[in-house]
């Protein structure tokens, strides 16, 4: 049986892991390679890096970080942030990523999803969608949450799948960094419109939240940052809570 995945997410800026609340107020959380190694040892099923600097200098640093991680961590690595072209995706894959997340560029140029899927297979194309509620609707935001696209998130998710996305990374901006739990209604709504795997993101504060995202939100994987970086809860605690709810997980040896 396929196990549900627990994925620590590392927001990386200029070679350091940072974390904000609702996408602002960044604090330093450590070295990305060291943190990735620690999480792999502690039973992470994948690691996710999001390059939130995405400047040209930061870009080169990020490729070095990916390479150093791929050389030391033998679990899968998903990388996102600042990927604007097939060539960008190729560079990130060649540096050692297994999957690549596209966000803003895909919204502005949807055929990027199609081109990347054709070149590398849809299994490695993750479409990352940052979502904020407006008057009862879920709206897609881009550029690290700064730009309101007025695009309906459910419509965009379904279109991304048709274009060749292999997975969706759904982040609730309203919940991000709040530790109040995932937006379960958003996850269910996306599930009902799509058939590709969904990674839930934004709002994890305790193990029960990650379990709820899978059991009630019907997500295939759960992503969390601060609860792991700040050692509020371990990956083992999360997996044990999932297992006690009857969810199949990869036990840590």
């Amino acid at each position, binding site marked *: 049986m396929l196990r549900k995945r627990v994925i620590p997410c590392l927001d990386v800026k200029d070679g350091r892991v940072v974390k904000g609340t609702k996408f602002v107020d960044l604090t330093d959380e450590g070295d990305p390679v060291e943190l990735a190694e620690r999480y*792999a040892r502690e039973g992470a099923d994948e690691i996710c890096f999001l390059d939130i600097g995405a400047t040209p200098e930061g870009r080169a640093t990020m490729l070095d970080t990916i390479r150093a991680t791929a050389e030391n961590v033998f679990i*899968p690595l998903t990388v996102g942030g600042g990927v604007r072209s097939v060539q960008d995706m190729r560079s990130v894959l*060649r540096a050692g990523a*297994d999957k690549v997340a596209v966000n803003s560029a895909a919204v502005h140029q949807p055929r990027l999803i199609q081109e990347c899927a054709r070149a590398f297979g849809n299994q490695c194309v993750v479409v990352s969608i940052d979502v904020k509620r407006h008057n009862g609707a879920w709206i897609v935001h881009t550029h690290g949450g700064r730009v309101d696209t007025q695009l309906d998130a459910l419509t965009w998710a379904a279109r991304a799948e048709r274009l060749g996305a292999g997975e969706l990374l759904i982040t609730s901006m309203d919940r991000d960094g709040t530790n109040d739990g995932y937006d379960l209604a958003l996850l269910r709504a996306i599930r009902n419109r799509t058939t*590709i*795997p*969904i990674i839930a993101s934004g709002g994890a504060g305790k193990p029960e939240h990650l379990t709820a995202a899978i059991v009630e939100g019907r997500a295939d994987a759960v992503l969390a940052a601060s609860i792991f970086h700040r050692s509020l809860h371990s990956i083992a605690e999360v997996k044990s809570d999932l297992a006690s709810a009857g969810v199949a997980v990869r036990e840590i*040896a």
Partner: protein
Amino acid sequence: MKVAVIDHGAGNLVSMVRALETVGAEPSIVTSGPLDRFDRVVLPGVGATGPAMRTLNHSGLTGELRGFGGPLLGVCVGMQLLFDFSTEDDTECLGLIAGTVQRLTTSPLPHIGWNAVSSDASGLFVGLARDELFYFLHSFAVRPSDQQVSIGETTYGTDVFTTAVAERNVTGVQFHPERSGSAGLAVLANFVNGAGQVRRVA
């Protein structure tokens, strides 16, 4: 042990090279022949079938792979390329093992994550549990013409499919051993140390 890691243009080779080094091999990334300089060949697996076969055909590696007599390991798409034909991009493949590659039917697809491979813990799986977990990332799977070549099987929803094969010098795994922690490294060590070419006795 000199191991050629075939570069077919698309994927992450860093992890495979590093994983092979970790188990004591000397890997080299290879974009053209001859392959007879090497003791073993790994055909890794990130990318789509159509572009990967086009790259192999242009570089002359298609003939080199068909002629290679030593132990060969295909990984993920690399395993699928060992078969006759893939319905991904309707592509004619290497034809080293008889059979085709078909899309899975369970939802959601792709099949992403850690799943069990049931094996008899021999060959590539020496030293591992009979239902060891490995990391998968794919939507297509092989259908060997002769089930005797199957040495590992995985269940996902209603799909039950072959996820490891061995025939003569040719082996393949659908999962990513270079991304499956210590269990994956054990599979690569078995391949490098020669256990991989041991054919299962039915």
